[in-house]
């Protein structure tokens, strides 16, 4: 199971501890101070549900499995593995995209910025940052960042490395 779905080698005891509900996640102290904590918790849960089973949990974690060399050359026709570059990016993209319209609007961006940037930056400045960010990425002129645009702006970033965790035990 573990191997099939994620390749993550997480001991089952750990999973047992936190596999049930949303509150269990929220009880993790480090997650409480993580600015994106809530969003990330939400990403673990299927829509509208407050429970996640082991399978779903592992599916989420599988996004962060490093891409190994032998996988790069594997069959192109098969289903895309969860830890592919595009899936990793999509995971991040979903954190922004609250209304799930496949676009990061200015408001959505502002919300994330507000969470990540300290309180000392004024709303106005934050607004200008958001505008600038959207301008940078926006190609079709709809004042929002679509997933394609999202991928495009990050094409030079080593996402495979920066969105992967190597779990050692």
């Amino acid at each position, binding site marked *: 199971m573990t191997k099939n779905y994620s390749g993550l080698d997480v001991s089952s005891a750990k999973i047992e501890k936190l596999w049930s509900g949303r509150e269990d996640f929220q009880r993790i102290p480090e997650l409480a101070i993580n600015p994106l904590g809530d969003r*990330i918790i939400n990403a673990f849960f299927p829509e509208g549900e407050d429970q996640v089973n082991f399978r779903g949990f592992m599916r989420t974690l599988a996004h962060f499995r490093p891409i190994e060399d032998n996988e790069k050359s594997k069959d192109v026709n098969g289903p895309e593995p969860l830890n592919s570059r595009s899936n990793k990016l999509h995971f991040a993209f979903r954190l922004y995209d609250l209304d799930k319209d496949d676009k990061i609007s200015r408001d959505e961006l502002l919300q994330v910025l507000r969470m990540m940037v300290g309180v000392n930056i004024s709303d106005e400045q934050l607004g200008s940052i958001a505008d600038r960010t959207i301008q940078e990425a926006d190609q079709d002129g709809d004042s929002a960042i679509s997933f394609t645009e999202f991928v495009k702006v990050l094409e030079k970033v080593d996402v495979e490395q920066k969105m992967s965790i190597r779990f050692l035990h």
Partner: protein
Amino acid sequence: MLRAALSLLALPLAGAAEQPTQKPESLGEPLPGLELFRWQWHEVEAPYLVALWILVASLAKIVFHLSRKVTSLVPESCLLILLGLVLGGIVLAVAKKAEYQLEPGTFFLFLLPPIVLDSGYFMPSRLFFDNLGAILTYAVVGTLWNAFTTGAALWGLQQAGLVAPRVQAGLLDFLLFGSLISAVDPVAVLAVFEEVHVNETLFIIVFGESLLNDAVTVVLYKVCNSFVEMGSANVQATDYLKGVASLFVVSLGGAAVGLVFAFLLALTTRFTKRVRIIEPLLVFLLAYAAYLTAEMASLSAILAVTMCGLGCKKYVEANISHKSRTTVKYTMKTLASCAETVIFMLLGISAVDSSKWAWDSGLVLGTLIFILFFRALGVVLQTWVLNQFRLVPLDKIDQVVMSYGGLRGAVAFALVILLDRTKVPAKDYFVATTIVVVFFTVIVQGLTIKPLVKWLKVKRSEHHKPTLNQELHEHTFDHILAAVEDVVGHHGYHYWRDRWEQFDKKYLSQLLMRRSAYRIRDQIWDVYYRLNIRDAISFVDQGGHVLSSTGLTLPSMPSRNSMAETSVTNLLRESGSGACLDLQVIDTVRSGRDREDAVMHHLLCGGLYKPRRRYKASCSRHFISEDAQERQDKEVFQQNMKRRLESFKSTKHNICFTKSKPRPRKTGRRKDGVANAEATNGKPRDLGFQDTAAVILTVESEEEEEDSDSSETEKEDDEGIIFVARATSEVLQEGKVSGSLEVCPSPRIIPPSPTCAEKELPWKSGQGDLAVYVSSETTKIVPVDMQTGWNQSMSSLESLASPPCNQAPTLTCLPPHPRGAEEPQAPLYPPSDPHPSFAFPPSLAKAGRSHSESSADLPQQQELQPLMGHKDHTHLSPGTNSHWCIQFNRGSRL
């Protein structure tokens, strides 16, 4: 600052240079037979030679870079070594003995620290810590491996009889040699890899290794050295244990010293708000203190400086001013590059000295082969282990580059020179071998590594501009990874990084950062800044012209109201021209109103015609730049002058003009003061003194005026301005003609002035009010003022010295001229007579028409003298009265 550092650098070199009692002729210095000159030369000899060497090295650098072709093929370090060889040969040929060696003391105390500090301070910390595991492995395990295998293999070679028996060395000697020859050298690595541009990961691993292996090298070298000195028979088992323990002491101790000094440095810069000028100095001093402290405690000094630079950067950069940041950057780079150049050149020169080395082919060849082979083997073995744990495994090509990039350099050379010949009989052979190894790695490997990298298609580093999106999303990634590790309960790298960031934010940054800096400290915001500044610069470069012609309509900020409507260019333009031209403005600007002001300011700054600027504070050592506020005031003043000139040109006799503008009125009032001081002082004018015209006086007078001005006097002032308008238009017409026709128009102005006065005088004489005197003077002085300002900007008068000469007629003649023409008493006024002007009681200051200085008025004036005298003494000494005119010239010129 630079000079101070240079002289620091110079001192030891001087000491070093003095040792081999040198003849000055050797340098080809011009030495005439004059005794006096000879004596002086010895006074300055040492620093002079040091400066000369640095100059030669710098000139050589310039020459190398004249040809792009050469520098693209050959690394600079190779060229410098070759140059050193040539220079050393020349010196040897001329002086018949080798001089100017690379002295280990000089090298370790003065040449090495700047390079290490530079690399530590500008080390990309995130990249460094991301790869810390690999770096530490290569630095510690790799260096130990290299030292022991090379030493042992050389000993084996000797046992096999391949090394000549005259090389008297035992196993310990070879291990000692192995320990000094095994360390990858930061100077050489940096010099070569900077030009190769491999990808960042590869670079940081090789470079980080070269920095961190210092601790291992130092320990190994010291341990082996003391073992050799003790003799192998006396070495106890506890000594080995001590050796191992000292590895930890030296490395951790060095790092701790560095961190302590980084903390001190950060803390110190927090309180330098009022003494910005010493900020860069603090950075260098404390980092150097860290180096010396570590050296003193025989800890790893390189590690100390690296950690100091790495640790303090974030806080220091946040604390010190923008200018200090630039200064630190450039000084550091200059010092490092200077030191590097000198090191390589001296390496070349040192190699010439054949008295120091003895050749043994077996040893040299054996060492070369062994260091290459064991380096490669070590890298492959370690990488294999590391790749079990690494997220992104290092592939074969990376390993090849890493093996090949293991350059040896000046550290090895300095260490081998430090050996004691009595204890290590084979020192000369070791020196020769080291020189060959260093030359081989720097020249041969340095030359070939570039083609190799190209041929192997090693991933190069890509230079792309940072984008806001990247920064933002990478932050998101970090948060996601940290959160996921939290969820899984896995305490991995991201967990600890996140914890550290929390700790830093909560305690360290609060403690070490200035409160203002801490508040606005945010990486995303930083990137936004930088992008905006870049845009601003490019915008000004290409669009400044458009800006000035379209005028003042731009800074209205539509984007603030409706962001969505703003086009990209408009927003960029807005942010470029406005908020972000200089950091200090942005730092403080908060509200939209302020920002608009800033936009306005920058727009005017960039768009308006700028007259020559002359800094008054040339004598202050402690403050470079004038206060921003003051500058702004000046600029506002200057712009007002301009606007007025413009409007005078276009709308003559526009009486209501000044009333709409509060600022011009003020300047007009200021001129009253000038006019009066001028008028009364009249003739005795000390022009030389005017050079020191004090700005403070202006401010004072302005305040004073504001204090003493009642509403009535304001009214009077307004009317005074009306005269100004008329008079100016007349004078200006003349002045314009002369200004446009001649380079030096001042003499031309004198002819029109009588006509001016004549026109005014009959009209003036009708009124008998004293206060009007003020305004009449104003009518004369203001046009002159503006005129001179105008003319000056047009006729490009360069120095202040010349304007007074040229202006003297203008200024002196014009105002008194009408008076003089009408009435000869004017010069009879006592020179120190402070003139009543703005301080007139309001009742007297009733606005009226002009007034002539008839004798009847004189008593009245004298009555007022005490009052005025008091006034004046508060802020005007008699001498300073004459400043006023120049002050205003300057004001318009500034």
